[in-house]
């Protein structure tokens, strides 16, 4: 019931071209004066990280190493991911992902990347986690989802929903984004669809915050704590085959007519209509945060209090 009511409300808003402002205005005029942040309430999966030691193997897998192309996971990241207890463990009711400065298989840092690939995935619903990000420079903690067809159709066709990405250059902000074909972030005219939320008078590394999305066939809503700060809908995908220019990884521009890379669909499709799995990781360095300052303190810990999925 809740779900339907909420959808109706949203659909009336979608008509408006300035979504975010409209939502705020409307909710401000609501009789109860509280913003409806989330409406999916039936818990499907959760990890409260209550059992000390290695994370629950029924939920979590690991990506290890430096990426399939040995290029720092496509982003020039510096860490070697492991599943060692030094890099990932559950302690005191928290998942602790530790980025460590050490020589390890040719990398200068180690860290961990957990994923539910092959163990849990879901289309639509509410995905949230309560996280405290580490405070150091040159770190890239993230909580995100990837379409489970990634191995078949590749990225960005599989779709990517970034619920939380943080870097110390902007300690009061995190961003939530989607990436897909024609709006992968490597594309022009439209890059990823993204928005950041600024705490204003606080910083994310100072405490825990709840980062979540609520995802239906027609929209993805982004919230932090009790604030709904963005909604992305299919109408935000502006790219059409006619105007798309696809910038390949080698930096060469290709149009729809000339590009011949298999699977590089540039139609700007809304691809968020199939199951996605969860990823939580702490990268070191790379294109987004830059490298750590010289003399930065390590280890740096990303703490996760819980991960919950509702429908």
């Amino acid at each position: 019931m809740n779900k339907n009511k909420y959808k109706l409300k949203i659909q009336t808003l979608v008509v408006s071209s300035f979504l975010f402002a409209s939502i705020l205005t409307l909710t401000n005029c609501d009789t109860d004066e509280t913003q409806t942040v989330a409406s999916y309430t039936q818990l499907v999966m959760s990890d409260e990280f209550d059992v000390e030691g290695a994370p629950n193997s029924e939920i979590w897998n690991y990506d290890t190493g430096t990426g399939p192309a040995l290029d720092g996971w496509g982003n020039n990241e510096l860490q070697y991911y492991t599943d060692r207890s030094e890099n990932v463990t559950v302690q005191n009711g928290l998942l602790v992902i530790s980025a460590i400065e050490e020589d390890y298989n040719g990398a200068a840092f180690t860290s961990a990347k957990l994923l539910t690939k092959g163990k849990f995935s879901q289309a639509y619903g509410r995905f949230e986690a309560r996280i405290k990000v580490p405070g150091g420079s040159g770190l890239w903690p993230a909580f995100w989802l990837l379409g489970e067809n990634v191995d078949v159709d590749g990225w960005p066709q599989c779709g990517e929903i970034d619920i939380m990405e943080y870097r110390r250059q902007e300690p009061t902000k995190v961003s939530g984004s989607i990436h897909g074909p024609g709006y992968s972030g490597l594309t022009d005219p439209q890059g990823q669809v993204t928005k950041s939320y600024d705490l204003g008078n606080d910083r994310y590394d100072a405490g825990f915050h709840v980062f979540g999305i609520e995802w239906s066939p027609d929209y993805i809503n982004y919230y932090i704590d009790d604030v709904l700060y963005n909604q992305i809908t299919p109408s935000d995908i502006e790219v059409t085959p006619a105007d798309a220019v696809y910038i390949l990884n080698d930096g060469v521009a290709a149009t729809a007519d000339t590009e011949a890379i298999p699977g590089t669909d540039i139609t700007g499709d809304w691809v968020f209509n199939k199951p996605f799995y969860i990823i939580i990781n702490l990268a070191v360095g790379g294109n987004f945060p830059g490298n750590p300052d010289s003399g930065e303190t390590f280890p740096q810990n990303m703490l996760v209090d819980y991960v919950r999925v509702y429908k």
Partner: protein
Amino acid sequence: MKNIKFMYSKIMLLTGLLFVITMSCERDISDQVEFAHLSKTGEIFTDSPIGLGSDFYFPYTGSKATAWSVDEGEGYESFASMRFDVPNANDPAGNYAGAIFRVDGSGRDLTEFDALTFWAKASQGVVIGEVGFGQDFGLNKYQVSENNVSLSTNWQKFVIPIPDASKLFDERGMFWYSAGTQNTGGNGYTFWIDELKFEKLGTIGQPRPAILNGNDVVQDVFDGNDLELTGLTQTFNLGSGINKTVNVAPSYFDFSSSDPSLAFISEYGIISVNNGSAVITASLGGVEAEGSLTVNSVGNFQFAPIPTLDSSDVLSVFSDVYTNVPVDYYNGFWTPGSSTGSADFTINGDNILHYTNFNYVGTAMSSPTLDASNMTNFHLNMYVPDNIPADFDFLISIEDWGANQIDNGGDDTRQQIFVDISQVQPDTWITVDVPLTLTSRNNIGLIIYENINNSSLSNFYIDNVYFYK
């Protein structure tokens, strides 16, 4: 500025003693006591001074006292700001601008803030020397400063984080600044400051305190030596994502010694060494500071021979036996090129000049120059610890600045005193005592020590520098 710093450490020493004594008879505060409610105002200057009282601006000695004014034609999003006219280097009324802003009356309770912030711009792009808060011409107990503040010709916001606001429950030192013309070739300029206030930003994080600038230092010291812990800083990450390092007074730190009976450290960062070896560490606001000092006692200090001449026959430049003539500084460096540092120390009340990483250094007496026309000899004691480098070759130059009393004013004359390796012994005070041959010696302005002929002397002590007859 050197004078001010010197006084500061002296005052700290004295008050350190006082504090220790009164601590011992401290009693718990009765529940009946009602604390005075101090002002929690954060604003210092918005369009006019806020709550400072009438007598709040105290210029530094030697600075231009009229440098500060309220400019009603400039302001950050307003029509008034504080204007600072930094004088030309040759301004007879003062060759720099600098002052403290101290509340005229009770202090303020600043415990709920996390930064001093202000907007500033200048008449030209310029780097000004120091700004900060917590200087009150008293103990300056909670002084904080930022060095080398770069101003542009547009208004910019500056943030100076408070290392630990819980200490600032009764603070009168709202703001202080010191700005000269070192970076402008001696030419004056103007800068403006507006919206000067303490604020709770909430966006300052990642505190990283440090002592000795974060280095782990091992130092040999003599028994009875008092050392001052230096390089006290706190680095924060600001809301802009940029790291900001400020210089922090010792009283913000909690110091600890691995063995207080061997090396005791006061809340003012003064270390008294008795014997043995101990490690000094610190924390600030519960965060362990980077850096440590390991002090190794190397036994009793051997003092220089005590001068016995009658004081009426002596013009003393540096000694504890005689009253010294006015000296600008004992550690004048010429840049670029000089590497010399100072680690002066005091043992049982005897002050010793200690030059480190030496290549050359000067002692200056410009106001006034020294009239040694009645004197016949120059004397000093020198001590080279550990060992004498094989290439030791040392030159002392006594420089008279002539009638115009200006360094390099065209009429300077010099007497050179060479000290070669045959005259020195390791770990031994030697005496240099030579007749003055300088014909004109009524305007002595400089005594220069330097390594010559590629001498690698790095580390030595000097005491009892005087002229006599």
